[in-house]
């Protein structure tokens, strides 16, 4: 009655927002011509054409003639979309239950908010896939999910097409947490308002017990299910899967002793596929991890929370990793906890560099007068800015640094989430890799916090700066990370038949000044900064 074409145009209601654009057809072949292609497994190809069709990489042609309609940016590098193997994007209080310790069957894939702005932030930093893990608010947080950061149909009526994340793997691992986090919210039943926080664990002891208790329950449950004497229990089913090796286990552990607890429990309880998340102090027991065959997804050593950038690896850390000694008199004077800050922070004597080439890259980092590393990739101008910014802080910067280095963790008197394992070091990945531990890098909360300078690619850059081989660092955020996600057959590699998740960088992706200029997810352009 009302609709008339003419009226439709003439008497149109004013719209307050842009109308969603429809996705372009997928059957067209797009071609990208690049000078350098980082395949993701360490290989690089020069001067290649990459063809994308139907969301997949359909061909990689070396040295071909560049078609006129090909996407080409001079000097650009192409990598597979980055894979963040450890992320808390959109993971918040609605996705993790605090009223109970065991919510093993809680599925992150079900409760995650796909329209969260964090995904867009991550995408803009080149991250196309993320392994989302339940937060550490209870011991058994639930099951993790793998998402692509874009390409999903948005539920938001006001959003652009493809702007939502999409789940590509639901219930891919069980997450459990050790350490302070799980107990910090709980308290004894006296002296405070009643509520579900009056419960165990309030300590590490309780957290470890909760893990053991549930797994022993699961073992009994498995037997009872066999002889039909138990009803289906959603939580224990998940634990049973872990015990049978059908579901990987992710354990958040930051401190040395927590990591060693994981090792002990793995043997005691018969865990088969274990990844330690964050593992801030893993360099203290890298050899144990190697011997036990447990892999590590290193938490962000470089972000504004841990302020590892302010401390960097100490000499003691580096030496301890290179030649793990018992706590011994010979080392006391250069002990981690006795670092002499009056001189302005740890100093790296020349002879160490000469005798120990392993960490040369890390040791040669130029530092300012406060012992803070100066990024060698910064050009002069930036360098100057960096210096002056620190200069403005003058005495304050030093004080902050002192705070960071105060051995609060080890005294055991501290509590709270982010004081745990504050010996974070950007050299963690390099140290673990050196020790032969299967390791990848994760950005955890970086993208949640709009801390783009802590984003995944920056973790890789920082790791390179502290001694990791560049090709390894890149693999740790692409191919190897995809393996951690259980998705190595479709993402993380620039190879024919793989998902066309590609990032075109303005230069070498590991250069601090490079930025993504074109991002494809499933062959669709999700970000275009070419202009």
């Amino acid at each position, binding site marked *: *009655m009302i609709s*008339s074409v*003419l*009226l439709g145009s003439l*008497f149109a*209601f004013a719209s307050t927002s842009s109308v969603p654009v429809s996705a372009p057809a997928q059957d067209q072949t797009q071609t990208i011509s690049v000078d350098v292609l980082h395949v993701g497994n360490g290989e690089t190809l020069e001067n290649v054409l990459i063809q994308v069709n139907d969301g997949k990489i359909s061909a990689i042609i070396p040295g071909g003639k560049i078609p006129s309609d090909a996407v080409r940016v001079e000097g650009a590098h192409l990598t597979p979309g980055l894979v963040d193997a450890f992320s808390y994007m959109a993971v918040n209080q609605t996705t993790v239950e605090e009223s109970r310790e065991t919510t093993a069957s809680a599925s992150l894939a079900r409760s995650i908010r796909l329209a969260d702005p964090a995904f867009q932030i991550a995408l803009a930093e080149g991250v196309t896939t993320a392994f989302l893990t339940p937060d550490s608010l209870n011991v058994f947080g639930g099951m993790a999910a793998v998402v692509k950061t874009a390409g999903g149909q948005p539920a938001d009526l006001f959003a652009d097409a493809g702007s939502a994340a999409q789940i590509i793997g639901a219930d891919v691992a069980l997450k459990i947490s050790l350490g302070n986090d799980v107990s910090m919210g709980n308290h004894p039943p006296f002296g405070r308002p009643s509520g579900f926080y009056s419960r165990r664990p309030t300590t590490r002891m309780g957290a470890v017990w909760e893990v053991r208790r549930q797994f022993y329950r699961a073992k009994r449950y498995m037997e009872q299910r066999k002889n039909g004497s138990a009803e289906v229990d959603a939580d224990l089913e998940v634990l049973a899967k872990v015990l049978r090796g059908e579901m990987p286990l992710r354990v958040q552990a930051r401190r040395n002793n927590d990591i060693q607890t994981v090792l002990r429990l793995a043997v005691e309880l018969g865990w088969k596929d274990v990844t330690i998340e964050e593992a801030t102090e893993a360099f203290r027991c890298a050899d144990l991890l190697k011997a036990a065959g447990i892999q590590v997804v290193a938490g962000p050593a470089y972000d504004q929370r841990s302020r590892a950038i302010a401390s960097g690896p100490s000499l003691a850390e580096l030496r301890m990793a290179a030649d793990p000694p018992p706590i011994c008199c010979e080392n006391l004077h250069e002990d981690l906890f006795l670092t002499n800050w009056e001189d302005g922070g740890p100093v790296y004597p020349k002879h160490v560099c000469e005798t120990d080439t392993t960490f040369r890259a890390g040791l040669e980092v130029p530092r300012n007068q406060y012992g803070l590393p100066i990024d060698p990739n910064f050009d002069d101008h930036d360098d100057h800015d960096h210096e002056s910014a620190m200069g403005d802080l003058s005495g304050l910067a030093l004080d902050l640094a002192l705070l960071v280095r105060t051995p609060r963790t080890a005294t055991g008197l501290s509590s709270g989430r982010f004081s745990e394992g504050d010996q974070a070091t950007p050299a963690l990945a390099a140290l673990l890799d050196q020790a032969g531990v299967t390791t990848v890098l994760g950005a955890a909360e970086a993208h949640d916090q709009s801390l783009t300078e802590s984003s995944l690619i920056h973790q890789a850059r920082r790791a390179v700066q502290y001694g990791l081989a560049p090709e390894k660092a890149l693999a740790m955020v692409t191919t190897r990370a995809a393996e951690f996600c259980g998705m190595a057959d479709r993402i993380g590699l620039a190879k024919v038949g793989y998902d066309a998740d590609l990032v075109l960088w303005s230069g070498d992706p590991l250069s601090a000044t490079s930025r993504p200029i074109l991002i494809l997810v499933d062959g669709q352009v999700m970000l275009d900064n070419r202009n």
Partner: protein
Amino acid sequence: MAVSACSLAIAFSGTPAVANPLDAPLSPQADGAEVQDLGFKRTYTIHADSAWLADGRVLSPAYITLTKGVITRISSREPQAQKSLLGSGPKPKIIKVDGTLAAGVVDAWSSVLPAEIRLDRRPLPFSKVADDLPIQVVGADPALAAAVAAQRSAGIAATYIGRADGNLMRGLGVPVGFSAHDLPYAGGAEFLDLMVAGDALGVQRGITDLNNLFSEAVGYRDSVDDYQEELEKYEESLKKYQEELDKFIKEQKKEEGKEGDSKADGEDDKEKKEKKRPKRPQRPSPPVSTTARDMILDAIDGKISVRVQVESAAGIRAAIALQEEHNLNMMLVGCDEAVQCRFELAAAGIGVVLDVNRVHNKANGQRFIDQFQQLLDAEVDVALSSGGRNLGPMLLAYAGEMIAQGADADAVWAALTSTPARMLGMASNFGQINRGCSGSMILFGGNSPFDASALFQAHQPK
């Protein structure tokens, strides 16, 4: 006077009351007036089944020609291509629509506010809303853009933008129309927004505050006069002082010449000292002005109008008294008890803006309609409005409810269009389909614009 909705429909859908459309009255400025550039570009003609013109006249069929967003031709005949010596010009663009065209509604009391005012935590009593209207709305103030779009789509062509805080004085508000870019543009008189605070019981305080505001301003003006007088006196005494000073200096110089001779003479010294230097007269201090005071004085001088939000009869009477004392150009909003002072209001020529939402008040709904009629009967200008709330889109629907409950349909329609336009000083541009008026119109099918089961579209000029 009361007619039912059916009769309204019959009245408006019957044969055209005006046989020759050229007889339709034109506002004096319309002819050859400079057309304001509001971003509308095109010239075209809308051909509708009929159109409601001013004063209840209906034109059928209706050809309304718009140029740059303004109605330039009203006729029941199709416009012809202009002929000249060189032959006929391009064929005029005609858009055929089904339904009846009517003037866009004027909401004299709405919630449309620019961000600067909406988010202002410390409202200044003398801010000018017109100054806060953004230059570009869509990017700069999305909430305002959305609000304007919502008003538009509900058929509102013009509204009043003023502060909505509870202060005695709220600065200068301004009636606005909407331009092509969802941008409110000022049109009509500026109003000094005032409020008599307090409910029926505590209203005395509000009245005192209101009167103080004006008497202080008048007092200030008086003190300016006093100052002038004092200034004249001062200048005179200043002259005197100069003369005395010259004399004094002369004498002193003489004394100095003597000094060398009579060093030892102590008495002489004493005499010298006793001859005092003349005192400089003090300059009278000028009375200190404020922007707020200047605004009040502007209102007293008739440069701007006054808009008072007031509910109780006592407050209304105080406002009327103020109007009589200072000969203000005044409009009242709210006015729960206006009916008690309807004859005073009529005598003073003060219009009132009612909140149409009151019709829903279960207990007072019928009373509201009665009051509406009584005010009209007493020949008070009455406008219906959305009451400063997010109810702009419901304005027409609620007004329809009044008709359902027995209000006079023609009166209700007038109270939504021509009356508020007149009260806001924008009668030549809004409130009726007339030459020179805004092309923001509504198109409706069915019985009336109040029928949501039938076609209803808001026309935004191109």
